[in-house]
């Protein structure tokens, strides 16, 4: 539109028009460039922010009893998420003074050697803070992966499912769960 109005104004003087267009063109290019780059950068920033939020959402550290934490992991674990997971867990152990942590990986489909080793490191780091870790929910595939890779499992307590893991944890903490009396059975 600017070009059209320039034409209209200077169509009589071709020399001048040519000079003006020469000056205009690089400026116009720079403007277009700046807008495009700014737009892309902003979108990327938003995407990064959302990715960060998703990552944090997906590794909550939950206290289910005094001194007992549960860390349910769902989805794909990449090295960055694994690292964030460990940091969150260690901070949670200190904040809640946890003595037992149950890490549930039922929701994890597959695990490579890096992540497996990271899991072992997480268990060891937790021990340094005085907490015992029980890993639950290992799928047959992951169990096979861990054995094949040769990960040192002697330090890692594992239980088949989350329920079993929580029961084991409660036992370690000295809890015993007994059913309340049925209403109406009292004499």
């Amino acid at each position, binding site marked *: 539109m600017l070009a059209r109005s320039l034409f209209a104004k200077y169509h009589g003087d071709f020399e001048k028009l040519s000079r003006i267009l020469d000056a205009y063109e690089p400026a116009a290019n720079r403007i277009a460039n700046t807008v495009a780059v700014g737009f892309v950068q902003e979108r990327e920033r938003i995407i990064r922010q959302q990715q960060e939020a998703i990552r944090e959402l997906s590794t909550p550290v939950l206290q289910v009893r005094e001194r007992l934490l549960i860390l349910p992991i769902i989805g794909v674990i990449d090295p960055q998420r694994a690292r964030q997971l460990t940091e969150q867990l260690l901070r949670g152990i200190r904040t809640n003074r946890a*003595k037992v942590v149950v890490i549930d990986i039922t929701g994890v489909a597959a695990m490579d050697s890096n992540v497996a080793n990271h899991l072992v490191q997480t268990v060891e780091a937790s021990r340094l803070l005085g907490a015992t870790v029980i890993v639950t929910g290992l799928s047959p595939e992951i169990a096979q992966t861990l054995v094949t890779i040769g990960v040192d499992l002697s330090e890692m307590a594992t239980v088949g499912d989350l329920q079993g893991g929580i029961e084991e944890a409660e036992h370690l903490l000295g809890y015993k769960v007994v059913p309340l009396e049925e209403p109406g059975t009292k004499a």
Partner: protein
Amino acid sequence: MEVPILKQGHYLIASIQSALTDADLSQLRAALIDKVGRFRAKGVIVDVTALDVMDSFAVRTLRDIAHMARLRGAETVIVGIQPEVAFAMVQLGLTLKGVATALDLEEGLAFLDMQRQVRVDDKRAQGRLDHE
């Protein structure tokens, strides 16, 4: 800088206040072993809450302290390892395998009490309990 070592009942508590040089660490190890013998301590607590970093020499010294103390009849607990320090340690492969650890002083003392009770029960079960 000398690390203060306090006696609490049958236990010795070494509370590290700031970063230690290698010489300080060696001095601490020597002091603890000496005191374990002199006071016939049953337990040692080393509190590293104030340490932001722990290098391989520090970790090795703590392991040495635990092993030497055990040889002289005392259990050792390392307490107060910070989350960042624990993370760095496992990444560098600096383990405290074989050494008991606890979250803080309170937990460390509870652990030592429990350990002592276990040893007393064991001796009782075996029918021989010396005077403590």
